[in-house]
């Protein structure tokens, strides 16, 4: 390889770098600037210093949105638990297991908008969920699932879990198939029963996948929007019961034209995202070190 300067590599990089510079790098800098301004997108931004951040700190809806986003993070442990269990089941050599695996993957590719709308119709006061529950005698009269503030977040979280389960199951399945069979044989000889062997072999063996899933699913949970948007009809739920940080950002920026305020929210989101991914990786890596 020659060491003299050549422009070739930069030419290869140019198209992609241009796209990323315009649509990712510049926007990051612009958001930092906008967050210190009063900006409605139509007229030029006006510098206001820390005012947006001060207002945010006093904004009860923002604090509520933060709380909701942190509550939403509960989907991550739930998803990990359920998808590891499901992966262990579909890893068995049962007839027809490939069909089940494919079936469980369908929500992953279907898209949260279409599926969310289907859920919304089913959960309607005059929907099939109420019809079934009443027919089974579990309810005496229909519940307004989507109008009840206490249900907004849990229903959205259920939808997120339902959408992601098949994806994470496949990741864990691939991980399980990488664990050498001999380890299980050894565990059986040591007197482990079927479930113990998963506790002692499968779960530790899946650590890299668990780290990965914990990071990506918690980042996705922090950024949830589509589920909330569809289930609340774009309104965020009664009494803001479904407003998360990203939903609040969207509302400030694109419903109320408060681009400066929305940028301040974006900065808070960015800081949380960074802290969170670092924390996630730290904790899970420390676990691996302790083991080896």
């Amino acid at each position, binding site marked *: 390889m020659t*060491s003299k300067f050549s422009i*070739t*590599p*930069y030419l*290869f*990089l140019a*198209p*992609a*770098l241009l*796209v*990323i510079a315009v*649509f*990712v*790098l*510049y*926007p*990051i800098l*612009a*958001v930092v600037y*906008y967050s210190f301004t009063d900006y409605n*997108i139509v007229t030029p931004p006006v510098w206001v210093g820390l005012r947006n951040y001060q207002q945010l700190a006093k904004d009860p809806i923002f604090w509520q949105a933060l709380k909701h986003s942190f509550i939403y993070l509960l989907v991550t442990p739930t998803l990990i638990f359920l998808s590891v269990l*499901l992966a262990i*089941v579909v890893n*068995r050599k*049962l007839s027809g297991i490939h069909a*089940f695996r*494919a*079936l*469980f*993957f*369908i929500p992953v*590719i*279907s898209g949260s*908008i*279409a599926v969310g*709308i*289907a*859920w919304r*119709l*089913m959960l309607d006061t*005059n929907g*099939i969920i109420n*019809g079934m529950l*009443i*027919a089974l005698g579990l309810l005496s009269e229909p519940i307004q699932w989507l109008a009840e503030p206490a249900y907004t977040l849990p229903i959205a979280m259920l939808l997120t879990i*339902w959408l992601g389960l098949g*994806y994470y199951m*496949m990741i864990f399945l*691939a991980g399980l198939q990488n664990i050498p069979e001999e380890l299980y044989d050894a565990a059986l000889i040591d007197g482990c029963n*079927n479930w113990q062997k998963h506790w002692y072999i499968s779960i530790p063996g899946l650590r890299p996948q668990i780290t990965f899933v914990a990071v990506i699913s918690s*980042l996705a949970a922090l*950024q949830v*929007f589509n589920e909330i948007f*569809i289930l609340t009809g774009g309104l965020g739920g009664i009494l803001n019961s479904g407003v998360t940080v990203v939903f609040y950002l969207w509302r400030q*920026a*694109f419903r109320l034209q408060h*681009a400066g305020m929305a940028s301040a929210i*974006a900065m808070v989101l960015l800081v949380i*995202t960074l802290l969170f*991914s670092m924390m996630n990786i730290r904790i899970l890596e420390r676990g691996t070190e302790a083991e080896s």
Partner: protein
Amino acid sequence: MSSRPAARSHQAAVIRKNLENLFLYIVLVLVAVITVFPFVWVFFTSFKGVTDPIYSVPPQLIPNAPTIDNYLRVWQQLPVWRFYINSIFVTLTIVVLNALFSSLAAYPLAKMRFRGREAFFFLLLATYIVPPVLTSIPSFVLAVKVFDYYDKIRSVIFPYLAGVLSIFLMRQAFKGVPDDLLDAGRIDGASELRIWWEIVMPVVRPSLATVAIITFVEQWNNFFWPSLMLHTREHMTLQVGLVALQGAFANDARGIAAGVVMTVVPMIVFFALLQQQFVRGLTGAVKG
């Protein structure tokens, strides 16, 4: 029946095995029902006429008098064929160009020595963590003030012409290509561009397929940015159009169900045809 103890314990083991399998199948069927039910329900509902109730106790799933009226009504009131054409156009353009530009960028990052290589790579990786919703605010301003493509179809194409994940995956793939292959091309006097296109790209086809499938699913289902940009119905993609339909057919669950079916069916058909590639593509990115 034999009464020898060895046979009896063997029999017990078989029974236990069968019971265990039965339990596993119950779990599998239960999860399958939960997974498939919304699709089945929305499918049947989309064929219900006015005589088949949406809500009843006990609920009725299968229509007594199936009809395609709902589909016709939706097609009449909304330019559904434009939604399809727009979605196909947007998705295919992005899949092809994103794979191309990302592969171009990944090649020097994997196979050339130049000043700033590590810096470029870490800069790219660092942007991966930035929430898309953050970049949407300045991107919106750019769309309105600089590129002047608000409400135009190209507005939902340009931002996705290169992606950090695609570059990362292609870089990994190129790293696996032996240097001897490249050197052979260089000795023959081929330009780097020709080496990339004629020697390296054919070798990394499986990774290109992975990138293409990830991009395809992501773009077909993309909603957030298109919903900010596209407002004229003729310019909408399927996902944005479906939400518009939901608004226009507010009290018409049958019509909305027809819209959901029309949005979801192409992807499910694709998935049924290319199951292995889908699963490998979407989850294969993990191994990185």
